[in-house]
């Protein structure tokens, strides 16, 4: 089992290495280097030369990659082009803000998804299932920017209950941030809950159809005892990986939600750095978001392995 965990870990590292190559080569082969695309019309003479010097664009690409990778491993992403700031200083508060948003959405989303998923599975094709499933399909398919815009229109503009957009500097304390994040959290949690509830539903339905559950029913095990002791432990294990993938997938959607609500998180930084053509920041964001994705997947693998004794022997044999 330890070998398996180690193997997953190494595979994750290899993936990150390839990601770093892709972001570096991608920025390299696209037309225009960091300086010409950043300076645009002023890209000539002294300004261009100074920029090239500062970024070290005059040395060969592979040397630049090596020194960049060496610094990134030590946690130093270099300097951003627009703010003249260290990228780490730019990233710090943004990561914190995004974490606040994501964890709030996860804390609301996972229990809600479990409850909804179990209800829809146990009352399959009956009225509760039809109503909840219709709602989940709607919130799954409608783009984030539409659900966020509708939330703002209904809750903030028509009902005037909550502020519609977040107007705070990026380094506020948590308590000041709280009333501002309610709507964005609802917008993100809605989609996440819908995806996970669908997964829990189909997983529970699959387990309910197995022989050992039929056996438990025939033996006369009380219904709710059977649900909690026999169905759920078996149904929720396979859902862990899928939940992880859903969370990771939401990283892309969070960008849009943060822009709609003007929330100072990582997602808006993505848009800002790309609009400013601040390629060093874009590279740093690529690596960071990819690391989040890879680590979420790794944690999910670990959890599945630890919670499911059967997998330990099954997969090492393979």
């Amino acid at each position: 089992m330890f070998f398996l965990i180690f193997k997953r870990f190494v595979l994750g590292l290899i993936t990150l290495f390839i990601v770093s190559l892709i972001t570096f080569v991608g920025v390299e082969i696209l037309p225009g280097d960091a300086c010409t695309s950043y300076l645009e019309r002023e890209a000539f003479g002294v300004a261009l030369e100074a920029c090239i010097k500062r970024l070290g664009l005059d040395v060969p690409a592979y040397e630049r990659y090596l020194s960049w990778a060496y610094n990134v491993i030590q946690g130093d992403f270099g300097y951003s082009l627009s703010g003249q700031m260290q990228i780490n200083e730019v990233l710090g508060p943004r990561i914190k803000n995004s974490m606040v948003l994501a964890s709030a959405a996860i804390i609301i989303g996972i229990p809600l998804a479990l409850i909804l998923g179990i209800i829809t599975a146990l009352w399959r094709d009956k009225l509760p299932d039809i109503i909840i499933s219709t709602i989940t399909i709607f919130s799954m398919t409608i783009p984030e920017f539409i659900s966020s815009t509708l939330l703002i229109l209904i809750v903030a503009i028509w009902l005037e209950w909550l502020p519609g957009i977040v107007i705070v500097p990026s380094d506020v304390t948590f308590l000041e941030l709280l009333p501002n994040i309610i709507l964005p959290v609802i917008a993100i949690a809605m989609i996440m809950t819908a995806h996970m509830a669908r997964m829990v539903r189909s997983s529970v339905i699959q387990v309910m159809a197995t022989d050992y559950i039929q056996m438990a029913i025939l033996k006369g095990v009380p219904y709710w005892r059977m649900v909690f002791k026999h169905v759920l432990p078996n149904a929720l294990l396979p859902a862990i990986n899928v939940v992880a993938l859903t969370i990771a997938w939401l990283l892309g959607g969070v960008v849009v939600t943060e822009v709609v609500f003007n929330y100072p998180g990582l997602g808006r930084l993505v848009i800002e750095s790309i609009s400013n053509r601040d390629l060093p920041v874009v590279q740093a964001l690529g690596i960071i978001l990819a690391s989040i994705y890879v680590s979420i997947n790794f944690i999910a693998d670990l959890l599945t392995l630890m919670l499911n004794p059967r997998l330990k022997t099954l997969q090492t044999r393979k």
Partner: protein
Amino acid sequence: METNKDIFEEKPKSSLAKVLEILSTMASKPSGFIGLAILIFHVVLAVTSPWFAPYDYKSINSSLMLQPPSLEFWFGTDSLGRDVFTRTILGGRTALTVTFFGSIIALLWGGLLGIFCGLVGGRIDDIVMRIVDAFLSIPWILAMLLIVSLLGTSIEVLIPALGFFYGKGIVRVARAATHDVIAKDFIVSAKARGHSNLSIIWNEILPNVRDAILVEGAMRWSWMLLGFSSLSFLGFGVSPPTPDWGLMISNARGLMSFAWWAVISPIVGLSTLIIGINLTADAFAKALGIDRSTKAPV
């Protein structure tokens, strides 16, 4: 022996009959019927709308700014005095075209690469799958935005870029589907007969994995539409004054406290189209007997 005889006597169905059969299975359930109806409505609308659009989509009239819905302007006018009804019925054309051709590109390269990797296995498979994993872990929006901001937002850039980024998930599905059939006797015997890899892919594997890949492609279509309209919304998709729902929502959003009609119409257009494609893809999967319920949206 009786069963064998039956198999030989059954006439092979023409491909048109098969398509009709699948369509009727899809339409037999209410969700599939609604999905197909919405999708057909949108496609017909997109094709015919230039002929019956009441106004010019780009004519700006400052005296008619932000008019509420009336008999003259059914859905009102936007902040530049343009007719929202005209722009709404024209707004799906670019999105449908770009995502349709993008999905085909995604299906082609993702499907073929996946089958190839599943068939050859070994080191090539390992390397390709590592690279696909790496691409999967970069958020699509970051990569798309970077490409579009550096290469421009023309359709010639958007279609291949979307096709490329939404195809990498198909590689995995096609590879898994290939793994399912690869150990079957007919592949082994085709190999034993000395057929080339290309001939095995075309004659033996493709007919068996086609359904799985097509279903995945249909699903990707709706995700790609979501991605494309998100790009438009962020200002990185089609450029104004082209009517596009994502762009219309983003333009009208700032004024929606007193001109809600300009933002509601494109929202209804885009939501119904995405829901329609989703329901259709779901019904398509069910009609072909493929279970997608436990898949994550990657």
